[in-house]
């Protein structure tokens, strides 16, 4: 086996040194009746070239070469080449959690920079080293608010990513955290009046997403005011990190739970991604996850360490703020490099391109379908309602190697034929025009079919 660095002679010599007759002696503690005396029924050992071929074939069966208009929590942005060059360095790739600070300063300093940039972008004072993803970060942020307020119930926005809501429901079930859902209005924004009604003396926090699942930017200030007046916290989930380049961050929030996938992380069929929690300094001791802090060594030199570990499971066990151990460090490093590459000016320009492509696409679609929620500002997603069944339209688009937007019926039956479209800086005008043309064609054929039916009706 090519990963194993021992010759048969080495193994013999080692067994002899140990005083074992054969390798089986070392497995004697396993009761004989349970030992496996056959080969595992798994694929045979393959050559490297065969493995590469296998995955290339799978890639071809997986939408390779399609133009994509899907967003909804996973975004296709350009990934600067140096991200992979740098994260492929074995010193980053093959190290573990920086428990031994003296030989982990590279990882520790990069996390410290990551925490700093997340604070700059979110307007928060502290950020952790990462969480699994945006959905679990949101659930953990809510649990943090429950600990901080001593209250138990949660008001959740219906315009929060539906799968994030499902994850929160799973986490909340056994922690005695009743959830109530506040719906959105005609502009796609959370219905502020409904939040006001839903909040009680037991509400720990209001959880919203902005830009929300429809791409619409919520009125964070108004929602924060209502929450704070009732003694509840505001937790804001951000699923499209690139929005932070041009959209004012939710500074009024108490906790921000972010998904940073947009910052240089491949869509990768849904993971691994990079969740992050950011908050106020005064709440840090209730924060889940790892934190890196600056300190000095015995000679007064600057260095970095994992800190405030008394919040964590390996010290606190059942009293920890979370059970999280392994996080998303290497993905956080991708995010870190992406933020460094684009920086203060580039992130803004990048976000502006997203805004421009989306504004153009929404205007084009508006000529042939109804663009919903157009009363409120949006970032890079928008919702279009058509007369024809969206799955039929998408199926036609697929024939032209275009993946259309996400039909919303599955998550929001009340939205009927509405579809969530997304454009990023990588969406070309020609792709937008092609998609709009095909949707228009569908709408025309539905229109003429309807006309024919009407005529038939009249003549009958």
């Amino acid at each position, binding site marked *: 086996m090519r990963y194993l660095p021992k010759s048969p002679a080495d193994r013999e010599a080692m067994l002899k040194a140990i005083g074992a007759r054969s*390798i089986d002696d070392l497995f004697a*503690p396993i009761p004989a009746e349970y030992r496996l005396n056959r080969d595992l029924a798994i694929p045979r050992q393959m050559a490297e070239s065969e493995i590469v071929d296998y995955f290339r074939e799978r890639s071809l069966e997986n939408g390779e070469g399609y133009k994509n208009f899907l967003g909804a929590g996973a975004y296709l942005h350009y990934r600067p080449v140096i991200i992979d060059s740098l994260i492929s360095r074995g010193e980053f790739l093959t190290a573990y959690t920086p428990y031994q600070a003296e*030989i982990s300063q590279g990882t520790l300093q990069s996390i410290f920079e990551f925490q700093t940039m997340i604070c700059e972008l979110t307007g928060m004072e502290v950020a952790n080293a990462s969480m699994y993803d945006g959905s679990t970060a949101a659930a953990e942020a809510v649990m943090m608010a429950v600990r901080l307020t001593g209250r138990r119930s949660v008001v959740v926005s219906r315009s929060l990513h539906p799968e994030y809501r499902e994850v929160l429901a799973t986490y909340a079930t056994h922690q005695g955290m009743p959830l109530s859902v506040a719906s959105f209005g005609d502009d796609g924004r959370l219905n502020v009046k409904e939040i006001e009604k839903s909040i009680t003396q037991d509400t720990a926090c209001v959880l919203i997403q902005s830009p929300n699942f429809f791409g619409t930017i919520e009125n964070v200030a108004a929602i924060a005011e209502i929450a704070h007046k009732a003694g509840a916290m505001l937790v804001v989930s951000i699923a499209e990190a690139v929005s932070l380049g041009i959209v004012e961050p939710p500074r009024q929030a108490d906790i921000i739970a972010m998904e940073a996938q947009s910052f240089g992380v491949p869509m990768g069929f849904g993971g691994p991604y990079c969740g992050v929690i950011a908050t106020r300094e005064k709440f840090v001791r209730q924060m889940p996850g790892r934190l890196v802090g600056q300190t000095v060594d015995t000679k007064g030199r600057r260095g970095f360490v994992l800190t405030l570990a008394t919040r964590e499971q390996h010290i606190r*066990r059942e009293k920890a703020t979370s059970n999280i*151990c392994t996080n998303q460090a290497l993905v956080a490093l991708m995010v870190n490099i992406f933020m460094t590459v684009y920086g203060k000016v580039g992130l803004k320009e990048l976000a502006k391109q997203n805004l421009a492509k989306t504004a153009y696409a929404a205007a084009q679609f508006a000529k042939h379908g109804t663009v919903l929620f157009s009363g409120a500002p949006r970032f890079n997603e928008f919702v279009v309602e058509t007369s024809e069944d969206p799955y039929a339209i998408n199926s036609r688009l697929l024939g032209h190697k275009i993946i259309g937007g996400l039909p919303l019926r599955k998550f929001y039956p009340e939205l009927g034929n509405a579809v969530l479209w997304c454009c990023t800086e990588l969406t070309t005008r020609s792709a937008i025009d092609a998609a709009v043309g095909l949707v228009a064609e569908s709408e025309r054929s539905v229109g003429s079919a309807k006309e024919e039916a009407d005529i038939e009706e009249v003549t009958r």
Partner: protein
Amino acid sequence: MKDGIRKATRHVNQNEGLIFEKSSAGKAAWKLPPLDVPEADASALLGAAERKDLGNMPEVSEIEIIRHFTRLSTWNYAIDLGMYPLGSCTMKYNPRVNEAVARVEGIANGHPYQPEKISQGALRILKTLSEALIEITGMDAITLQPAAGAHGEMTGLLMVRAYHHSQGRPRKKVLIPDSAHGTNPATAAMVDYAVENLKSNAQGMVDIGALAAQMNEDVAALMLTNPNTLGVFEQEIHKIADILHAKGGLLYMDGANMNALVGKVRPGDFGVDLMHLNLHKTFSTPHGGGGPGSGPVAIKKKLEPFLPKPVLVTKSDGTLGFEYDRPQSVGRVRAFYGNFGMFVRALAYIQANGPDGLRQTTEDAVLNANYIRKGLEGTYDLPYSTPTMHEVVFSDKLQAKKGVRTMDIAKRLIDYGFHPYTTAFPLIVPGALMIEPTESESKEEMDLFVEAMKSIAEEVVEDPQTVLDAPHSTRVSRLDETAAARKPILRWKPGT
């Protein structure tokens, strides 16, 4: 100070400040293509929601970024540099073909919501990996959704809860041995189970008498790591399972140490009802400085209705798809389908090994741990003489007489060119040195390790101060963790 350190030599490495300290206005590492649509008027589109300023985000050039992160990287120790015997973490070689295939276009850029019709490649990877892991564990079904081991534990306990609920007998507590990982009790608390500690016996194994006494119909499950954190196989595993099952409890196995068993024995065959795997341990996906992980949960048939949604199914036309209509499911534990990129890597690893390679891998891991045990026995105190599987736990009892503790020895090991072992865990061994070489170490590397550990033991006798002040060869000496926690500085600020 002792000379003759054979594995490592000091060499110059570069200094490097924080990236913010290199920033100045007008430098850039990015270039966007010209817009092919009309420019957007941000203030007209966004109004009050428009962001004007990005604060102290850096402005640097590409070469500076390359040097910055390359310099930082050289301050890390890594498996690629040498033995990384961090017990319980399974720091094995991370094959590079895994990285290559994870970056193939259609695999790296698949969107989780793209139609199933054009997702068959990704779904086939999920299916093939699932089947292999089910066979390896001897279980009946699996979910790949959990993002890491601790997340898998949570998923598992949610299923345990749902199972007991369906039996009409909700239960209150989970038994956890005193040798367990901290994630086990933390997870039980998250799922609202009371944690009851289970004492280990003199061999470091579950005390069968104590278990029988503590087991009753309030106990939902026992969370057992096997081999346990001492690297010891629970020889009476069948009795343990019987005691639990007799009173309707479930046996949960923490699969953190599955690398000691693959191809030799299957948990499903010795009474385990459900277990998680750590793909970043046993199945070689990179630890990446702390993640990403992946924590699939394999289960027996009776737990299948409770799997998280969605569940991968083969449809009547032979294509693969997700099933969402699962009324008894515990729900979703993560958006989308899990850390897919890690599935790709784990499957590539299984393919590179095949059944013979996986078995040899397990044998070598156990052989290596026993070789180290033999080499250091006598030099360091071995609190449990029970046979060792994939890792061995010593204590600092002999060295503590000179005032030198496990952390000091660990720090001195750094000077010898090794990453330290795991210190002060498991908790049942005071001053533990937990050593897990994995199969990836050659005899030569381990001989150097044994030599280094022996040399440090001599130093403890002859010159303990050298060990107490270690490390001596790193960029920074021991860091003031107390100060870091007392007055936390968790981000850079301008002018500091």
